[in-house]
């Protein structure tokens, strides 16, 4: 009984329960046909949502008002630049990854500068910078139809016994980030700032330095997502980041991270990302139209935040 109590108090358990419920409903409807394939496809696609979700989680955890809205443009920007630099050649793979990370670093530093120098809420700062980043991506990547280097494409789509290799790598990465969040000075500082920035500052935490690192981390994760995603989908496109704005925020919230800040967890992001993908798959198998799928996605996010909400900012 205590075990049950312990588990039910973990915030991330709900996203996994939702994931299984949706998967089970799909499996029953199809009579179990292709249920394993569905899981492996879901793993492939959820991987990209998890990458940006982790970055967004750290940003959201630093407290109310902290959200990175520039993730979609950063994904498109990094993907376009990396594809152009590499020009489809395996030899330039490392250079491409470095340049892509450079794009992320630049966006992250720029975001933080806007927040700090203009003293504007992060939402507005990242929104304004996303316009600039997107324009740069459009101007730079006009008519871009460059295939990714074969090595990158192979890596991003590789499967071993039906399990996507990239997903395994990102699961390991998520474990690492979980340790960073709960066991390192940086992670504990992020949580402390989210709970009470003033108390954190009085306790000697370099609040601004941590916030800087957090915005850079989020932009780096978006850039990494853009790099891998263009390998996965056979090239960069300018609107490939679009769907990740809602997705990155949704997986954080559904995964049990508090929007008020100061309370975060990494496993929930995986559960939520799988849940979101399986939900769309389920609606597809039920034969729902595009309109119904959109409505259901939106309503479920509102429902989850309504149930999870209510916890007041700890101040």
């Amino acid at each position: 009984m205590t075990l049950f109590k312990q588990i039910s108090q973990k915030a991330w358990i709900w996203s996994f329960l939702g994931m299984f419920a949706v998967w089970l409903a799909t499996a029953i409807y199809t009579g179990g046909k292709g249920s394993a394939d569905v899981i492996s496809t879901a793993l492939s696609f959820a991987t990209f949502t998890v990458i940006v979700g982790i970055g967004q989680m750290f940003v959201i955890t630093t407290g109310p008002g902290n959200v990175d809205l520039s993730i979609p443009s950063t994904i498109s920007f990094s993907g376009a630049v990396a594809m152009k630099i590499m020009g489809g050649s395996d030899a330039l793979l490392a250079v491409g990854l470095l340049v892509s990370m450079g794009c992320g670093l630049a966006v992250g530093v720029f975001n933080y500068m806007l927040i700090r120098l203009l003293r504007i809420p992060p939402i507005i700062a990242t929104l304004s910078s996303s316009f600039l980043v997107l324009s740069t991506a459009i101007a730079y990547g006009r008519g871009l139809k460059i295939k990714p280097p074969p090595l990158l494409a192979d890596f991003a789509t590789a499967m071993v016994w039906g399990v996507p290799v990239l997903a395994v790598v990102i699961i390991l990465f998520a474990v690492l980030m979980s340790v960073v969040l709960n066991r390192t000075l940086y992670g504990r500082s992020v949580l402390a700032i989210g709970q009470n920035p003033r108390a954190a500052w009085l306790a000697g935490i370099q609040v601004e330095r941590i916030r800087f690192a957090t915005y850079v981390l989020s932009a780096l994760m978006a850039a990494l997502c853009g790099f891998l995603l263009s390998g996965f989908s056979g090239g960069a496109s300018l609107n490939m980041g679009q769907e990740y704005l809602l997705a990155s925020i949704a997986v954080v919230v559904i995964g049990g991270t508090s929007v008020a800040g100061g309370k975060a967890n990494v496993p929930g992001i995986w559960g939520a990302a799988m849940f979101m993908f399986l939900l769309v798959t389920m609606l597809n198998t039920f034969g729902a139209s595009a309109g119904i799928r959109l409505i259901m996605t939106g309503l479920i996010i509102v429902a989850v935040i309504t149930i999870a909400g209510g916890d007041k900012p700890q101040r």
Partner: protein
Amino acid sequence: MLARLTSPRFLRAALPPASFAVLLAAIFYLQPRAMSYFGMNLMLQYTVPIALATIAQMFILTVNDLDLSIGPFVGLTACIGATLLSGNPALGVLALAACVGAYAALGALIHWRNLPSIVVTLGMSFVWLGIAVLILPTPGGTAPAWIKALMGLKVPFVPFPIVAAVAIGLIVHFALMKSSYGAVLRGYGGNARAVGRAGWSLLKIKVVMYSAAGFFGVLSGLSLIGLTSAADAHIADRYTLYAIAGVILGGGEFVGGRVSPIGAVIGALTLALTGSFLTFLKISPDWQIGAQGGILIIVLALRALINRREG
């Protein structure tokens, strides 16, 4: 006198009209032919829907929230306007009223559960878009004739968009800035707890503000189809950004209930002009969005400078 003119308070109030004037002067310099009744009408024609969406966003910002769904919502009301409203007016009016009601319910929900408005409205943006796609799967429909006639109104000497924008600004100004309940509404943004202690219902304030935002969103959608005469679910996707930018260009603050309806309308006028300005500058369409972001950052930087002097 000089001290008054350089005081931060005056500078802050003067920033929105000044940025509008600078932009207008730059356009006239680049393209003198724009300086005519017809030219102004053409350049500013989309001011009315943008101004109405901006006012809607301003209501939400007044109570310290942010609406990331106003664009798709305007798109939905445009779709309803171009299908139900022209085919079956009674049903159309009912559907639009339901849209306003949904906004009121959102306000109540956000207050009741103390929810972050960004997440809720981000989720709702999918709902609005989904309903719009169900109503109008492919671009089309026709706007009711009376809306087209209203939006095509010719006013002597002054272009209609300017007249309409001034009227909208003044009406909201008197309702929100000059009425006693308007002061209470803005007080929520300043210190919600104090307003609650003074005996005002916080739930009612949220509901009133969200309903007002929904109502102006409906007006924005209807005025938009009056100009385009047909609708599409994605017709107003960019209005979410326009509305936020409009409030900011107009001098509104993000928290604290410090907003300005007249400023918001001027912000919308400025935004409507930026498109023409960038075209006259022969900036490639690739950089249009970026330039809008740039203008936003410049205005915010100027404001940060002014605020710093205030100390």
